[in-house]
């Protein structure tokens, strides 16, 4: 080699290296400026981030996104305990025989396209909501009519006490006539809530602003953005970085980190993210096929239940020991939570005794019955709720300790109802929402019907439960009788265990420090944006 090759003789190394770094910084800087908030400008929109994607505009698919963002309203609303409350209907009356329901609309209500909310528009939305799987299809409706501009009349074939609850479900949200295309499908979301859509980019993004012509008090938060982010870690990091003001659906690890930061004064000053929590009417259950010879014996089902360490699962996988289910329906469903029931317990010895009494013997490869046939079970679950596969594997191990061999099969949520229909299902782990509509009666009546339910009993039924649920659905029973019927139901479910409760749920939301007045809806019907305001810095 002769002289050293040096093309950059007038340049220094430092200057040559600075070039790419400067180029990168130049690309990023305008973005960083864009993030800087000008103190005189109005605050940036309230940013919500959650796991729920907008899978379509049909009210039954994604209506809940728009009711939660208070873009659309339903005829009735519900209090935290599920009691019906006025919403778009100012008041309602029921005929003495329970067959005719009359709803009077708020006179000043307007759709976001400026047109008044007429009874005819409500009738059209409700009729569209009568198609399965929208829940209104469960009600024995004879007709929905509009006798005048401001009244909606619903006639039933037989009394149905859960009607107000069904009319509070997001699939019955009221849309303007202009929302529907020529084929009857929803083409745009024109509601009548306090916020109107400013931008809608399915499947991820919605932006709303205050609707000026709303007939209620004007909300303090002027603009709101919703972003669907499928990873829980992403949502937590968005909250921590100050990008999201409300982050729904936190995973236990992120939750613990945020809680630790909130308690540590040095870190709290920097992130200052609070955690708000509320218990949900949702229970992790093991649905089981009681029609199988092995599971028909109630002692085997009780043994399966006794072998579960619920406190351990609740603490390790859901971040809170108190979520261990002592019965099917959680305490937040006050009217249905039965304090007289003996709580479900973890007792491996009692489980072993029950299995022996049922004729099962322990072998090296698991349990075998008196005829020497082995007990091999498969538990199906799905990934839509990230904790379910983890809980399934915990159950697998706990049952293995009891000598019961169980295989975990992780698939799609549809596999559970399908296995119910074709009879192939043995065990399934699911997270059942007992307040899909504010009153759990309808959900329970479906789950524990005589022929069983897609997400409830399978190969099991109790006449007492079926009759009690029928009476609760069809007649307006006096309070004493109602209580007695509910007790019959919860007591039978606890002793017979057609589904085995594992854990209850608590919703955790990361809340930004600039936000005040945050309350959470236990029924997950609304983000309650109208009650929030910016806190003074």
């Amino acid at each position, binding site marked *: 080699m002769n002289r050293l090759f040096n093309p950059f003789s007038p340049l220094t190394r430092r200057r040559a290296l600075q070039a790419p770094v400067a180029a990168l910084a130049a690309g990023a800087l305008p973005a960083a400026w864009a*993030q800087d908030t000008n103190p005189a400008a109005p605050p940036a929109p309230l940013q919500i981030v959650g796991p729920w994607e907008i899978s379509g505009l049909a009210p039954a698919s994604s209506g809940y996104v728009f009711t939660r963002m208070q873009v659309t309203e339903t005829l009735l609303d519900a209090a935290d305990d599920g009691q019906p409350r006025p919403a778009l209907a100012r008041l309602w009356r029921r005929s003495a025989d329970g067959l005719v329901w009359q709803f009077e609309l708020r006179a000043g209500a307007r759709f976001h396209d400026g047109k008044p909310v007429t009874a005819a528009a409500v009738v059209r939305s409700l009729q569209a909501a009568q198609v399965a799987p929208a829940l209104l299809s469960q009600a024995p409706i004879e007709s929905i009519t509009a006798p005048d501009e401001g009244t909606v009349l619903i006639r039933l074939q037989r009394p149905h006490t859960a009607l107000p609850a069904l009319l509070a479900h997001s699939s019955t949200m009221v849309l303007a006539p202009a929302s529907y295309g020529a084929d009857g499908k929803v083409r745009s979301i024109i509601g009548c809530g306090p916020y109107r859509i400013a931008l809608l980019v399915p499947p991820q993004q919605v932006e709303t602003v205050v609707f000026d012509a709303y007939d209620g008090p004007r909300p303090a938060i002027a603009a709101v953005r919703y972003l669907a982010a499928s990873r829980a870690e992403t949502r937590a990091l968005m909250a921590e970085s*100050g990008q999201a003001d409300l982050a729904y659906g936190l995973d236990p690890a992120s939750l613990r980190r945020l809680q630790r930061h909130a308690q540590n004064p040095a870190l709290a000053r920097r992130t200052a993210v609070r955690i708000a929590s509320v218990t949900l009417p949702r229970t992790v259950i093991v649905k089981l096929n009681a029609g199988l010879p092995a599971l028909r014996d109630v002692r085997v089902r009780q043994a399966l239940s006794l072998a579960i360490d619920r406190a351990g699962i609740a603490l390790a996988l859901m971040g809170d020991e108190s979520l261990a289910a002592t019965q099917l329906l959680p305490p937040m469903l006050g009217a249905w939570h039965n304090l007289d029931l003996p709580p479900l317990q973890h007792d491996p010895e009692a489980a072993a005794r029950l299995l022996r009494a049922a004729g099962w013997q322990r072998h090296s490869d698991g349990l075998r019955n008196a005829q020497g046939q082995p007990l091999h079970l498969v538990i199906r679950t799905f990934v839509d709720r990230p904790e379910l596969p983890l809980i399934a594997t915990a159950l697998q191990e706990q049952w293995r300790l009891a000598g019961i061999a169980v295989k975990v099969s992780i698939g799609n949520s549809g596999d559970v109802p399908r296995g119910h229909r074709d009879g192939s299902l043995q065990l399934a782990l699911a997270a059942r929402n007992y307040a899909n509509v504010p009153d759990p009666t309808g959900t329970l009546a479906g789950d524990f019907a005589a022929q069983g339910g897609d997400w409830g009993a399978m190969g099991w039924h109790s006449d007492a439960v079926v009759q009690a649920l029928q009476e609760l659905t069809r007649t307006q029973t006096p309070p004493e009788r109602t209580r007695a019927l509910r007790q019959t139901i919860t007591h039978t479910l606890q002793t017979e265990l057609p589904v085995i409760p594992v854990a209850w749920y608590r919703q955790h939301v990361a809340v930004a420090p600039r936000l005040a007045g945050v309350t959470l809806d236990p029924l997950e019907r609304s983000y309650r944006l109208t009650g929030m305001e910016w806190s003074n810095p």
Partner: protein
Amino acid sequence: MNPLLSKPWAALLGRRLVQVLAVSLLIGTLCFLMVRALPGDLAMRVAAGRYGYDLVSNAAADAVRAELGLDRPGWLALLHWWRDMATFNLGQSLVSQRSVWHEVTHHLGATLRLSAAALAIAFAVGVPLGVWAGLRPQGWVDKASWLMAVVLRALPPFLLSVLLVLLVAVQWSFLPAGGDESQASLVLPALTLGLGLAAGLARVTRAAMREVVVSPFFEFARTKGLSDWQALVRHGLRNAAVPVTAYLGVQALFLVEGALVVETLFAWPGIGHALVHAVFGRDIPVVQGTALCMGVLFVVFNLLVDAACLALDPRHTQKVAK
């Protein structure tokens, strides 16, 4: 003479056009057969995709089956799809009920923006580093770029993205951690993808540069009196660019593969994320449409790479002409 009419170009374009047609037909049909062959009931999966786990039930699946005619035989559906393809109609999503073209362009547009930004970063970081390292082998830039390549290629994209978010978004509050609402949201996912690519690019550029520098023609350029800078610009860079361009063509795969993880982590509305959702929801038209567009895009991208190589290396033109 118009270069597009010259023989090597025409041959290249013709070959790629046939490829596009064959790839489209093959991909669409394969996707259809594969999704149909997946276990699980089609109508139930679509119902679960549409209504979520709280409302999915046998009643919902029956309604979906009746609405979409899913109980008709599979070959009939495939015939319909071929007929639609002939009229450039990609059909309607089974889940969202919007047109597949709309879904694909929305998601593909986001992925292309992300990929372009990642490529720009890879270029800005990888090429200068590689050229420098190639000119000064065993120098500290060479060693540093080697170390960077090892570390960045060993780090999986999901780890790199979490580290970047923790540092840049959480610690410094400098850039958003996710979403796509502003241009700033693009920076972190693009960095995650771009840095990995830059690492490889730097090493390939270094090797290409090294080969050029020790070659007789380069030595001759310097001997005939060109300055080092002139020799590099006129004879070095163009020769080194050929293998680098070919490498980028191969790495397009890496971008799309990495995009899946990165898009999910950054809540970026891209095609990888959409494709996974479509497969889970058995949304056959979306799977077909997405795979088709990606396949065509690969062919087009390869065409561009080939064209760039042809333009860079005149010897190639003669070879193709022969």
